[in-house]
């Protein structure tokens, strides 16, 4: 194995880890600020100027709190739960292409940790494992509210994964590849998928909200019914990991949404640049898109009230899946015509 490649990937992984955590930390701050603005308030403003040190203060608080394990909890699974949640949230970012190639020290550096040829399936794999963190944590707490949260999380996850998968297949059919790099490259410039597949985007976006347990789909942690849902019994940094994992997965899902539908790092007029300028600009554009989607997800949270559970199931199975399937079939027919299957 090439040592330089190893170092390069290692640096990228560490950088990605820090960036994910940093963005997740400041997402909590920004979420509170946004909630305050929407409700005509000020929000956190005591820790540092404009309260920008708030995430650090929160982190210190989380570490200082008593780490409590209930007497009848399954101890090892109780610890494993938040670990799985955080791990799966972080690992997804490894296949995201962050920008065009960078040229440094006479080497071509690909801004992507691993380019699987099954990239999008990897995303679905990690998402489907992510629910185990919640399920194991909820069950191991030995608390009925936690168990309800866990059960809700699992049924919600399975229901929305179907519609999400079908709408992702539509995009795969259009780009002809499962790899995220190819999907991004097929949307060069302003040739974004959103202009061809707005319905598909809507379905995927709603499902992404449900998969990350964000409002209006935050039934697993629904405070008004289940106290804290799956993390009722958690405290200290274990709770912190659960809450943090939600923000990390929000960051990653914003990245995936912008890759699949908004051209990833592509931007109009990108042919005028080349080399490292292009790489830097593309990374900036990609992060701008990610921040925009994080903003939209938060904006939705502070606007729309939570679903009732039967409404959630109704929306998933009877509305989104039929729409996604019809959209898939229509796309297939159009592609078949385009490729000239029916000509001879």
């Amino acid at each position, binding site marked *: 194995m090439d040592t330089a490649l190893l170092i390069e990937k290692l640096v990228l992984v560490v950088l990605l880890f820090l960036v994910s955590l940093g963005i997740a930390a400041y997402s909590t701050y920004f979420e509170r600020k946004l909630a*305050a603005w*929407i*409700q005509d*308030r000020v929000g956190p*403003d005591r820790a540092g100027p404009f309260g920008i040190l708030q995430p650090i203060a929160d982190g210190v608080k989380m570490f200082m709190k008593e780490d409590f394990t209930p007497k009848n909890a399954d101890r090892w699974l109780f610890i494993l739960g938040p670990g799985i949640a955080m791990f799966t949230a972080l690992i997804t970012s490894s296949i995201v292409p962050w920008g065009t190639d960078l040229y440094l020290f006479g080497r071509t550096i690909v801004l992507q940790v691993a380019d699987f040829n099954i990239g999008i399936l990897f995303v679905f794999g990690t998402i489907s494992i992510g629910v185990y963190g919640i399920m194991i944590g909820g069950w191991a707490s030995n608390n009925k509210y936690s168990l309800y949260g866990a059960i809700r999380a699992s049924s919600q996850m399975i229901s929305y994964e179907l519609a999400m998968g079908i709408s992702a297949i539509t995009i795969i059919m259009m780009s002809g590849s499962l790899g995220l790099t190819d999907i991004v490259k097929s949307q060069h410039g302003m040739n974004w998928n959103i202009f061809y597949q707005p319905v598909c985007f809507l379905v995927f976006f709603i499902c992404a909200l449900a998969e990350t347990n964000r409002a209006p789909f935050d039934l697993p942690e629904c405070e008004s019914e289940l106290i804290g849902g799956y993390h009722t019994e958690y405290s200290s940094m274990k709770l912190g990991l659960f809450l943090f994992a939600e923000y990390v997965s929000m960051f990653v899902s914003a990245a995936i949404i912008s890759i699949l539908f908004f051209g990833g790092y592509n931007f109009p007029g990108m042919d005028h640049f080349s080399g490292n300028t292009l790489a830097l600009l593309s990374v900036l554009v990609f992060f701008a898109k990610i921040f925009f989607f994080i903003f939209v997800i938060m*904006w939705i949270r502070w*606007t*729309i009230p939570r679903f009732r559970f039967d409404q959630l199931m109704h929306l998933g199975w009877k509305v989104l899946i039929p729409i996604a399937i019809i959209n898939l079939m229509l796309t297939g027919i159009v592609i078949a015509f385009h490729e000239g299957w029916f000509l001879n």
Partner: protein
Amino acid sequence: MESLTNRKRVVSDKPMTFLEKLYLPAIWGGMFITLKHIFKKNHTIKYPEEQRVFAPVYRGMHVLKRDEEGRENCTACGLCAVACPAEAITMVAEERKKGEEHLYREEKYAASYEINMLRCIFCGLCEEACPKEAVFLTDRIVPTEFDRNDFIYDKSVLVEPINDRIDITKRQNTGKRGVI
């Protein structure tokens, strides 16, 4: 019946149209409203630095007034305790002795006068009931304590200091107040 305002709306349960069943226009409407609020002025008062102006009739912590010569007005008649709906006021009356004329205005005075601030509902009925212009509510806030007993305020807290008079002239005028 004719309605008094024009805010009345007739409720109907007609079936939703297709556009309404999509929910998306309504969701977008809601999102637009919250978006507008992001750019609105916030109404927060940053408390320790900025303080709200009290209304002149604000009913806060009580004060037992002295007259112009610094004598206590209270004659321990007990009308405030009778008027108090929360039964927060207790007092012990005592007769004024010779040589105490510079301390108490009337022949009878309150040897002890206690208000339990946890019971008090700050209705101001004691102030209304007082015939001697002795007890008033002021715009001062009762501070928080850690012990329930600390909320029972006695004369050492309630009677105004001679050198540091508390101005009540701005309060609602019932016609029985003096200058100070």
